[in-house]
């Protein structure tokens, strides 16, 4: 897993690439989330466009991030979900938890609302 962070109209976007499958990635991701929250940046968009796949340990990383942001009264959303990631979100019923979008523009516009 690789993460690049950028900002777009008050929204912090994490561009993730590769595979999300737990291990040391977990801490890296969570630290980044916490750092942003500490700086008052609580609108976080996870761009999964370049993620091939994710296992349940990887899902756990997203869930932990979601929970931290939620607890800080922020918003944590997903964009560019491939059909493979959609599959695992559906099976786990997590698609009902994570707000997700097909395009970044749509996603960014949705924050704050």
């Amino acid at each position, binding site marked *: 897993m690789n993460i690049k962070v950028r900002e777009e109209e008050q929204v912090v976007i994490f561009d993730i690439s590769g*595979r999300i*499958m737990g291990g040391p990635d977990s801490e890296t991701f969570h630290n980044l989330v916490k750092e942003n929250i500490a700086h008052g940046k609580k609108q976080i968009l996870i761009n999964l466009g370049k993620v091939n796949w994710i296992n349940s*340990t990887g899902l756990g990383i997203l869930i*932990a991030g979601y*929970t931290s942001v939620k607890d800080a009264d922020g918003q944590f959303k997903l964009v560019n979900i491939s059909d493979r990631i959609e*599959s695992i979100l559906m099976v786990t019923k997590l698609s009902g938890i994570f707000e997700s979008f097909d395009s970044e523009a749509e996603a960014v516009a949705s924050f704050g609302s």
Partner: protein
Amino acid sequence: MGAVSGTAEVLRWEIPSLFRWLGVIDAALQEVGQELAWEREELNEVSVAVIEAVSNAIEHGNRFEPARSVQVELRASGRHLRFRVSDEGPGFASDRLDQPTPSPESPEFMMSRGRGLFIMRDIMDAIRIQREAGRFVVELDKELKAPVGTGH
């Protein structure tokens, strides 16, 4: 040609116990699914379940010891698939498989770990565990809904 009914096509893979090798299993599965013309959504689901089993074998079974192997076997007979994922670890008690999947309303639903077995059970038709020749084996069965095409 589609799989000849009656005879199974058997494929096997073996990897060291590191997450980095999950991609090799996944790439092979995608190719098998395409070759056997599995419907895209079913291929996605089946590969999610198998990747969970292999992830567990690597982490809980072999504890990331690269010298220990994880083996995956697929038997495909027409629409019936049987995966066997094995590791060199202690396994787990079978009553773990009887626990209900937490519902979205329950407090455990947002747990960050502990989803793998539920995913496998919810996707596949049957999941069995057994010990065989010193290995711990998770056996996953799936009857594909979609008729299997010709693959060519």
